[in-house]
């Protein structure tokens, strides 16, 4: 009986420690990030594809772009509306979305993904930290 007292106290302390982070952060979910569009991006009205598609699938488009540009040498992307774009992360995407910190990073931080695009492709120096 004497021993079980210690065990129960131990279990309670253990549960308190384990659940502490959950209880501490209860009801404080990180807010969904709000993205800031640059003036150029606003003026363009629509991105390469619809906003909804870009939100979900921009990584797929980027993957298609890098593959076709580097490996097959085709550099023009024609979207379903028939509009042509130069397939270039540095020159097309980041030209409009030159605010990496407020556009790219906010969502990537929220989703906890760390793409290494900017290791090589410019992050517009005007806007970088």
């Amino acid at each position, binding site marked *: 009986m004497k021993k079980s007292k210690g065990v129960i106290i131990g279990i309670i302390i253990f549960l308190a420690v384990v659940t502490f982070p959950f209880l501490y952060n209860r009801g404080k979910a990180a807010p969904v990030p709000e993205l800031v569009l640059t003036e150029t991006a606003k003026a363009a009205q629509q991105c390469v594809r619809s906003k909804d598609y870009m939100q979900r699938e921009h990584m797929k488009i980027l993957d298609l772009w*890098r593959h076709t540009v*580097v490996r097959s040498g085709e550099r*023009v992307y024609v979207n379903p509306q028939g509009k042509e774009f130069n397939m270039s992360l540095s020159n097309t995407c980041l030209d409009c979305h030159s605010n990496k910190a407020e556009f790219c990073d906010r969502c990537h931080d929220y989703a906890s993904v760390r793409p290494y695009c900017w*290791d090589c492709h410019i992050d517009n120096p005007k806007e970088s930290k």
Partner: protein
Amino acid sequence: MDSSRRQILKFFGISALAMSTKPVLDAFAAGQAAGDAEANEHTQSGPDALKARQWAMVIDTREFHSLEDVEPLIEACHKIHNVPHLPVKRHEIKWIWETEYKHAFPMKGARFMAEDLQHRPILVLCNHCENPPCCRACPTQATFKRESDGIVLMDFHRCIGCRFCMAACPFGARSFNFRDPRPFIAETNKQFPTRAKGVVEKCNFCAERLAVGQQPACVEASEDKITFGDLYDPESKVRELIKTNYTIRRKQSLGTEPAIYYIV
């Protein structure tokens, strides 16, 4: 009684099966529709893109006498491609550089050869071999020979930095980024990406310039001392120069079929 119960169960079973296939078929149909939407987008090459079966270069070494003649070309290339200038020799990155005759063409030298030829700067770069040993060595196909125009290209996204290609290249045309190159780029050209630490890089025959109808940077800076064209087009300037001049190639006996020809 028994048989009728059995029949009712059969009926239910078949109905359940029929009902469960509908969502599956719907999903297939939706997949098909999504596939159609994807098909609406496509990629193509630009209207001004230069095309060839195998790009080749003829360098007239007789026109290059001193370092002042070659440096602007090297500078032009390294500037637009964000090639870093690293002070430590063993970390050096180079796409195009100059060397002496005896290093560029070992086994081709003669004793007591003309002093002018012995000491003139020979421009060397990736030979864009027709039979490139580097591409065979690459375990990830990060370096590959582009089918459409014969350029030996690097896909930096795929390079794992194993450096097998550097060992395989008999011309030392490849450099490895031992350090993050970005701090060593004096002036970044924002049109062209930089590289990351841990990848191999080399001359890309200005694939990005050919795609918009421009000649390679070194050719443009050379003022006709270097000629660029399609090796398999009998009418091309390159073919004419090879026909009318005696040209040599680097380490031809290795069988890699370099596409850089030198008039000496």
